């Protein structure tokens, strides 16, 4: 017994030291399997962040937001020094989408970024917040009026409460639409089933509806990508996906599987001209129509104004134009963000009746026009209506009159 004691003690020491060695070796092994920390110090913040340790494979989000300048945390939030995924992501804004309207001001705002002054054309977030795309004011007013919940068609409610103290439309605010407080069961059901299309709504299930929310709903055209070259397919995540049935207050998904571009549009009674089913939505519809102009509007019709004549003119008038003489003209900025035209001082472009530049349409020396698709970069030329055999009556200038002759029957 006495002779065994020292051996047992030695043996225990051996086991202890061996166990210590195994534990430390295991710790080294596990640590060695971790990726090396990748440090980035964005010039904008000067503060190191380690997001690229795991996310180095993400594509650059846009030429205007290089990662070396912005880093990740400026927009996404999160714990910049954390190497543990759960901790790093714990304080991110908007989950994977910092442009969700609930956090867009913190992520995308700031006077130098997207919530600056109207004079500097940096009030993008204000424009989006008050736009029909996010208030859905027209649809809400229409349904409530139809079912007797309000006595006029004016906009009183929006998806969220919003104010515009410097309104040009006369609408200074909208209160939040609360379906649960509505008395009419149809309006309640509308609230339950039909609010999937405003840009901050979670999209319906299915690949055809896949989109982000907030700014990303329109501008995120791929994985970790922001763009102003927005193809019509992006718009189609909400538009042309089916129709609402007002009797049942349900959304009826389209059941066809279009193989031609013209059939991608889905309005059973709709008529489309060649340019409407060849170009992308953003080639004709202006930024204020689509993203809002900073004012609260009562419905879609009150903000949408581009017609066929905007580009083609009428029998008696050519379309409006502007010769670029100011290097600060907004057209140059838009062309810079999506460089399809290489505009130069002295170029003459088309403008709308509100003075918005149709900056991808340039007047050619022979009086015709050249246009480059903002998303497709396709080259087109076209001519004005004036001087053609068009027999349109002078008082019939809306697009639906053009459709009578120029639309393709589906």
């Amino acid at each position, binding site marked *: 017994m006495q002779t065994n004691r020292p051996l047992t003690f030695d043996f225990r020491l051996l086991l202890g030291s061996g166990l210590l060695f195994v534990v430390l070796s295991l710790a080294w092994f596990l640590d060695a399997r971790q990726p090396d920390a990748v440090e980035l110090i964005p010039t904008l913040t000067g503060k190191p962040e380690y997001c690229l340790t795991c996310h180095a494979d993400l594509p650059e989000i846009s030429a205007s937001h290089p990662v070396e300048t912005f880093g990740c945390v400026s927009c996404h939030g999160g714990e910049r020094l954390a190497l543990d995924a759960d901790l790093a992501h714990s304080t991110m804004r908007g989950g994977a989408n910092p442009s969700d309207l609930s956090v867009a001001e913190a992520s995308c705002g700031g006077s130098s970024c997207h919530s600056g002054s109207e004079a500097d054309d940096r009030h993008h977030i204000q424009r989006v917040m008050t736009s029909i795309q996010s208030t859905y004011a027209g649809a809400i007013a229409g349904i409530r009026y139809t079912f007797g919940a309000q006595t006029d068609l004016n906009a009183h409610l929006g998806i969220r409460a919003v104010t515009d103290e410097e309104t040009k439309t006369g609408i200074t605010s909208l209160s939040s639409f609360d379906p649960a407080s509505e008395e009419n069961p149809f309006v309640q059901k509308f609230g339950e089933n039909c609010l999937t299309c405003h840009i901050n709504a979670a999209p319906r299930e299915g690949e055809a509806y896949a989109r982000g929310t907030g700014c990303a709903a329109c501008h995120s055209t791929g994985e970790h990508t922001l763009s102003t070259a927005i193809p019509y397919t992006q718009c189609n995540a909400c538009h042309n996906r089916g129709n609402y049935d007002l009797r049942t207050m349900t959304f009826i998904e389209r059941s066809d599987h279009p193989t031609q571009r013209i059939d991608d549009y889905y309005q059973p009674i709709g008529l489309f001209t060649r340019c409407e089913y060849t170009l992308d939505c953003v080639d004709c519809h202006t930024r204020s129509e689509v993203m809002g102009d900073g004012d609260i509007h009562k419905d879609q019709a009150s903000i949408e104004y581009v017609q066929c004549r905007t580009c083609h003119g009428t029998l008696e008038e050519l379309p409006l134009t502007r010769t670029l003489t100011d290097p600060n003209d907004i057209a140059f*900025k838009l062309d810079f963000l999506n460089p399809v035209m290489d505009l130069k001082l002295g170029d003459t472009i088309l403008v709308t009746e509100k003075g918005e530049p149709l900056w991808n349409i340039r007047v050619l020396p022979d009086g015709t026009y050249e246009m480059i698709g903002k998303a497709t970069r396709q080259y087109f030329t076209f001519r004005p209506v004036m001087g053609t055999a068009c027999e349109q009556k002078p008082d019939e200038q809306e697009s639906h009159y053009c459709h009578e002759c120029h639309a393709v029957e589906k």
Partner: protein
Amino acid sequence: MTNLSRRDFLKLARAGFLWLSGALTLGGLIRFLDFEPNPAPKTEFDLGPAANYPLPSRTLLADPPAVLWHTESGFSAMSLACTHLGCTLEDGADGFTCPCHASRFDADGRVTHGPAAQPLSALRIEMTDDNNLILHTD
């Protein structure tokens, strides 16, 4: 050949384990202490021998983005980080252009086109005793 007793073998193995454990612990400690997760931004940049920048010369530096001049009056430098949001400016025939948001600056760093509102910053150049150039960004 010496016969190793059982006790000696245990001692040797134990010592081996302890030494290796100690080495692993020391290595881990060094690795831990060596890692600085939140370093202060670098403000001094060694540009190497002044002789690398002959008179007269104009040199674009990549890190930090800056332009270094060597003229009769000596060395001078200007930051090429855009004063709008910090993107690195591109050198052009009539000044510098921001590839991110199209701000433009003339050759002396004055704003000619927004959104930037502030001129480019002059940077301090120091010559060391052994004729090396140090660029200061603070």
